[in-house]
């Protein structure tokens, strides 16, 4: 009897223990072993750059409603533990009151900042340095091989006005402020890695403060100069068929006696002009975004436009994010500002070389505005003809047309 009862109970337990038909066993909690915290799999996935579902901690922010009454034991501690409070701060979910008025000031922890810092101190600094050093090395090599490009015909002693006062003013307003911006920008980005180890923090601090002031305020002179240069020179920089001829012989830069015809600007100068326009406008926009923090976010909108073209997807970047936090916008603006700045500086180093030590008579064009007639005949024969109504007719090996 007892044995029968025992077997019946045992059978009932066995039946209850079996899953009902059609009922699935709930999957085991993957975070049971860590008490709901992140697992080794989470860490490994993050290290591989995989997206990890972090809702297990993003949403674990405590429950103030479940707090014990203040009169109870530990009641005054509330329903949120310290880790839960910090987690809420990190995910921007804490109910904060801040004393600053700046937009985005309620974001007190933003771990994307570490990725920005790693980029700024890593690839941006390293590849930017390599780019500038490579450009300088190429120019030194070019100078050794080619030497200074001299006027090949006889100097006439007669000059022709190459650029009027307004053109030269625009050029030097932009150029002068660009030099200030480039030097102060480099001083800021290389401060921690190069200048502080060399001169010490006490010496660097006033340089950094003055450099930041100069960088912020000379930017306006640069933008005005850029606008002026675009207005006065854009009409002369529309590509034409002569540019192809100029490019086909490398502008005569690599061989003596070759002077492809050019109007006011040759193809090389047009490339520099358009590079200055595109990079100048781009760096101005990102600079404005940095000058007025959090007021001019533009990357989310830009990414949306780019996604619409399908270009990022075609290049393997996938859909670019179109919802960005205020700090992400600032970090992208600074990163882009730095990338464009290094490209810009590399191009301008080449431009400065050709305008000074690289080519005889080139500096006069923007210095006094007057160039030797022979220089004009050799380098800008079509422009010389347009201005004077005379055929260039110089005596170099290749006619300049």
């Amino acid at each position: 009897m007892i044995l029968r009862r025992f077997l019946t109970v045992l059978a009932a337990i066995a039946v209850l223990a079996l899953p009902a038909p059609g009922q699935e066993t709930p999957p085991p909690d993957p975070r049971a072993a860590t008490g709901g915290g992140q697992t080794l799999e989470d860490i490994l996935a993050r290290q591989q750059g995989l997206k990890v579902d972090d809702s297990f901690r993003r949403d674990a922010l405590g429950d103030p409603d479940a707090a014990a009454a203040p009169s109870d034991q530990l009641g005054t501690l509330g329903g949120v533990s310290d880790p839960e409070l910090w987690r809420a701060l990190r995910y921007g979910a804490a109910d904060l009151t801040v004393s600053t008025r700046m937009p985005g000031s309620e974001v007190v922890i933003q771990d994307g900042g570490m990725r920005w810092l790693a980029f700024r101190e890593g690839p941006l600094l390293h590849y930017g340095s390599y780019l500038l050093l490579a450009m300088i090395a190429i120019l030194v090599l070019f100078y050794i091989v080619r030497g200074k490009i001299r006027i090949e015909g006889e100097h006439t002693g007669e000059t022709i006005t190459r650029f009027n006062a307004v053109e030269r003013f625009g050029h030097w307003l932009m150029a002068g402020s660009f030099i200030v911006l480039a030097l102060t920008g480099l001083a800021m980005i290389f401060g921690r890695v190069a200048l502080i180890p060399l001169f010490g923090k006490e010496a660097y601090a006033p340089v950094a403060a003055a450099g930041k002031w100069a960088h912020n305020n000379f930017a306006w002179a640069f933008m005005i100069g850029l606008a002026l240069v675009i207005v006065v020179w854009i009409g002369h920089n529309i590509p034409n068929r002569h540019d192809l001829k100029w490019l086909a012989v490398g502008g005569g830069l690599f061989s003596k006696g070759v002077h492809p015809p050019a109007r006011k600007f040759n193809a090389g100068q047009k490339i520099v002009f358009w590079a200055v326009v595109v990079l100048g406008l781009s760096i101005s926009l990102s600079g404005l975004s940095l000058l007025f923090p959090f007021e001019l976010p533009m990357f989310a909108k830009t990414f949306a436009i780019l996604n619409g073209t399908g270009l990022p997807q075609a290049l393997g970047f996938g859909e670019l994010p179109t919802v960005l936090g205020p700090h992400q916008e600032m970090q992208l603006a600074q990163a882009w500002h730095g990338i464009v700045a290094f490209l810009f500086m590399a191009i301008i180093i080449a431009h400065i070389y050709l305008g000074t030590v690289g080519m005889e008579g080139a500096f006069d064009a923007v210095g006094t505005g007057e160039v030797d007639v022979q220089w004009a005949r050799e380098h800008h024969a079509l422009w010389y003809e347009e201005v004077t109504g005379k055929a260039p007719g110089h005596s170099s090996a290749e006619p300049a047309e």
Partner: protein
Amino acid sequence: MKVMAFAFLSAIAIAVIADLALDHAGFSARDVTSGPAVRLD
């Protein structure tokens, strides 16, 4: 070369004027970042 010198001086003048004008217009860092509880004067 006078134009070049004038342009450089203009760049300095624009920088100083921009700084003063933006400060005056309430765009200084202290104006933008301090809350109403902070007395700036």
